[in-house]
């Protein structure tokens, strides 16, 4: 019982939302809503995250991108004041990283995007998040789960940025077909991510 209890508490401490910060939106300088910008306004992920197709890092938009609309819309609102302050002073808006991978892991957005892994596969329904939070714990088992069997999670390249994408009933056939077509390798060497 002692051992069982210890393991149970350890498991909960290790996997619980409190430890992994899943579903907990950190406080940001501006309560930015992906729900509003993506779902209500229909703005594509790439409008702001311009680097996601070509670089390892998806890219956080510069203040200029915010000002493209907010120089005219909500241009007197208190909530958007930090944008105008940043624009006037040239100082960065200090956003808090939501997906903070451990430093011993190498990750590259562009290769995933270009091989048919959709944004929502890892980031969840960002279009339904009034405040941004993580839906996956980013543990190694979670990464490896897909690296061992990409056919289960792959989608057609044309659907990568479709946040409402649902896997079709014939994913068991389509998946392996896409894996072959896109030359997806099931990379599970340690050095793939720990380089």
């Amino acid at each position, binding site marked *: 019982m002692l051992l069982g209890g*210890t393991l149970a*508490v*350890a498991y909960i401490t290790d996997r619980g939302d409190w430890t992994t910060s899943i579903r907990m939106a950190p406080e940001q300088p501006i309560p930015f809503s992906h729900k509003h910008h993506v779902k209500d306004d*229909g703005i594509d992920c790439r409008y702001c995250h311009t680097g996601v197709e070509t670089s390892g890092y998806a890219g956080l938009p510069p203040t200029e991108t915010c000002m*493209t609309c907010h120089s005219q819309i909500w241009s007197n609102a208190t909530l958007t004041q930090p944008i105008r302050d940043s624009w006037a002073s040239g100082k*960065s808006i200090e956003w808090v990283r939501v997906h903070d991978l451990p430093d011993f892991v190498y990750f590259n957005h562009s290769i995933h995007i270009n091989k048919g892994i959709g944004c929502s596969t890892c980031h969840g329904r960002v279009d339904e998040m009034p405040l941004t939070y993580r839906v996956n714990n980013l543990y190694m088992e979670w990464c490896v789960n897909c690296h061992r069997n990409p056919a289960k999670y792959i989608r057609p390249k044309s659907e990568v940025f479709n946040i409402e994408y649902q896997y079709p009933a014939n994913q068991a056939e389509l998946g392996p077909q896409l894996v072959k077509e896109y030359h997806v390798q099931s990379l599970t060497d340690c050095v793939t991510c720990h380089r």
Partner: protein
Amino acid sequence: MYRRKVMAGVVLAGALGLTACRQDMHNQPRYKPFAATSFFGDGRSARPAIEDTVARGQLHLDQARYTGKENGKDISYFPIQITRADVARGQERFNIFCSPCHGRLGDGHGMIVSRGLRQPPSYYDPRLVNAPVGHFFDVMTNGYGAMYSYASRVPVDDRWRIASYIRALQASAAGASAGASQNGAASPQNGAVSQNGAGQSGRAGGLQ
């Protein structure tokens, strides 16, 4: 009772022992993209390029291609080869970056306009139908009126591809009003046909 408390203590201590607390490897002494630093006065670890330096491969000598102008005047031809694939790419980029305000049809009825942004002109306005193609490149590069510059967001050649798609939109509208004659739609003016002979963008009038 006492025994139970001791047992709970042991369980908790053991559990904490099983979940590591040290984060040295997680947070190594290096910067991730855009990480904050106390080293530089502006607090940024990402450094801006020093003024007047030119990065390798970014010496933009081809004035027409990088500014859309020649001798201060908007050019009326495409300085890069435009194929059907380029127009399709232009359509995709247009829908990402332009359609929020200009609308998917380019008529100026985008979603953000309905939210209160000043309405942009329709591409079917005779002024824009007759504008040289370099004008569209120039507007994307430097902004115009209420529109900000997109130079930092859309790479140079993608701006030309977007321009080719705008021409395709205009040509398709012209084709529709001319009874969608097969060849009528394929004659957009002012440089839908590139100088180096790859003028397929005109034929893309029916691409939607």
